[in-house]
């Protein structure tokens, strides 16, 4: 398969449509993706007495939406190989002339888009049930920041999916990564609440910069810098995935793990 930009974009879009359609037809996946962040946002709103502070409602809703995006990327991308393996299509993907990294990207991108359902739901709840203004959520900056979050988390998802190709029990590992990333990205609590020695770890995460961009976009802060850094760190994760995937693929072909359930 050619890797001309036009074909890459076309494949990404067709792949995104395919996997988005496939995942969206799982009622369990969609319900889980939507329901959990709504619960988190309700808890955050009541804990911070945000009901009487519209600005806090917005902050809590956005944070819960971001948590939903990360959870979706983490669980769905982390287990992407396992899912394709269970469906029996992993061998067909690996055995296709399309580079495996390109074949994987639409899957992980779809998981991030599914995660955006969470953001849409928490924003909807904030506006309809807690009287938050819809205006900040309609600004191009907010939409751009969310889009950057989705794409960069998709990049992170590619790296995770590549790294987990050898793990048949990836679920066990992804479980342990959910809450730490929430914390380190400043989704659950402000970064200032974390010890200083953890901050460098946070800086390495595109999700932290994406979170900052989304937050700043709704409160009118500067968005360009966090968006740029989010894209930069996301690209670094993609480069790591490129470095990893060939080795992992070769190892999987040597150890015959592509079809093991």
């Amino acid at each position: 398969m050619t890797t001309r930009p036009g074909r890459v974009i076309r494949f990404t879009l067709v792949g995104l449509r395919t996997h988005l359609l496939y995942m969206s037809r799982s009622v369990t996946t969609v319900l889980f993706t939507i329901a959990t962040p709504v619960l988190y946002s309700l808890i955050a709103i009541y804990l911070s007495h945000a009901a009487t502070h519209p600005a806090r409602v917005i902050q809590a809703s956005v944070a819960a939406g971001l948590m939903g995006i990360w959870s979706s990327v983490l669980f769905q991308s982390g287990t992407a190989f396992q899912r394709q393996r269970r469906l029996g299509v992993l061998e067909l993907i690996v055995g296709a002339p399309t580079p495996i990294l390109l074949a994987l990207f639409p899957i992980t991108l779809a998981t991030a888009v599914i995660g955006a359902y969470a953001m849409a739901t928490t924003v909807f709840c904030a506006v309809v049930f807690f009287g938050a203004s819809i205006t900040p959520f309609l600004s191009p900056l907010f939409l751009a920041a969310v889009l950057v979050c989705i794409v960069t988390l998709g990049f992170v998802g590619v790296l995770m999916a590549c790294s987990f190709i050898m793990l048949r029990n990836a679920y066990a590992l992804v479980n342990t990564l959910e809450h730490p990333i929430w914390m380190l990205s400043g989704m659950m609590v402000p970064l200032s609440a974390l010890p200083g020695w953890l901050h460098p770890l946070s800086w390495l995460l595109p999700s932290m910069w994406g979170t900052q961009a989304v937050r700043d976009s709704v409160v009118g802060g500067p968005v360009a810098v966090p968006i740029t850094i989010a894209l930069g760190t996301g690209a670094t994760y993609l480069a790591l995935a490129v470095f990893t995937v060939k080795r992992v693929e070769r190892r999987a072909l040597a150890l015959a793990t592509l079809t093991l359930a």
Partner: protein
Amino acid sequence: MWRQVCARQSDAADRLAESAAIESANLRRVYTVRTGWRRRTTKEIHAVQGVTFSVERGELFGLLGPNGAGKTTIIKMLNTLLLPTAGSARVLGYDVVKHPVAVRQRIGYVFGGDRGLYDRLSGLDNLRFFAELYGVDPAVQRRRIGTLLDMVGLIGRERERVEGYSRGMRQRLHIARGLLNEPEVLFLDEPSIGVDPVAARDLRAIIKELAAGGTTVLLTTHYMAEADELCDRVAVIVAGRFKALGRPADIKASVVNDQVLEICARSVRDVHLDALRRLPGVRSVGVDNHSDGASVILVRADGTSNFHASAIRTLNDLWIIRVNTRQASLEDAYIALMSPAQGTGIGTQTSPVGPL
């Protein structure tokens, strides 16, 4: 119309004289299995033990063998999904280890069973995705998908979700998927497994047409009649080694002088089978017990011996329903090859084995 799908591209014609479609030299694959937790032990399973063969362009080649014989392992090494432990293999002149992408661009892979499709998507969505994945030119995708759907008889059902398809429909969709990139070599790994006789017949018709259109097909199957009907040549593989390789007629010839006596009877016991085995000239005795209490005893014997009367006499205390004699089939030859005492007599592989 769909014969056009199988039309070979001009570059394939240019390479025609260069190499065989598939060449394998002393191909080996060892799986390492680890067991235990505290005391981990490692065991090596030699799935393929030095297989050498070649398949000419346009040939329909069958791999026959019992479960675990190494058929699928060979196919996966040839279609770049497994790295050989030793030896080498080339598909259309490209080394499967050094040039996997070149191989992948030119082959199709279809396997049997329910898996290998996105079941919550329609057949059409599946084909669209795999067409992109296999790099089919967008300008020809729509027409080719339509042609393939027509070929496999799924026109009108293509917008339904695959989860609602029957096994036969899924298998036909698999075939369509495997042909999206107009492969020069098609690997079919037990494509008719679990499908009903009518669907299996349809699949055989499709495979025949593909071969007639010039596609090289490597087929694995458990169904001897299928292999006999379809294949130009077959290889019988047992425990990772070829036991026979040749045209089905040649392999059948190894037992063509044998007589096969089928006796349908009730209340068959081991003592009867043992008595039959002791008769002069008898090579093998098998039995197939039916749920209604009847059994079909299969006696294969040296063609020169006159054992019919003595066989019937041996079973004189049984209620014999039917007796039938027939010529030996490929299945009889296969069973003979599986038998340790008699399996080395014909076509035993010499390396390398060329087309007969």
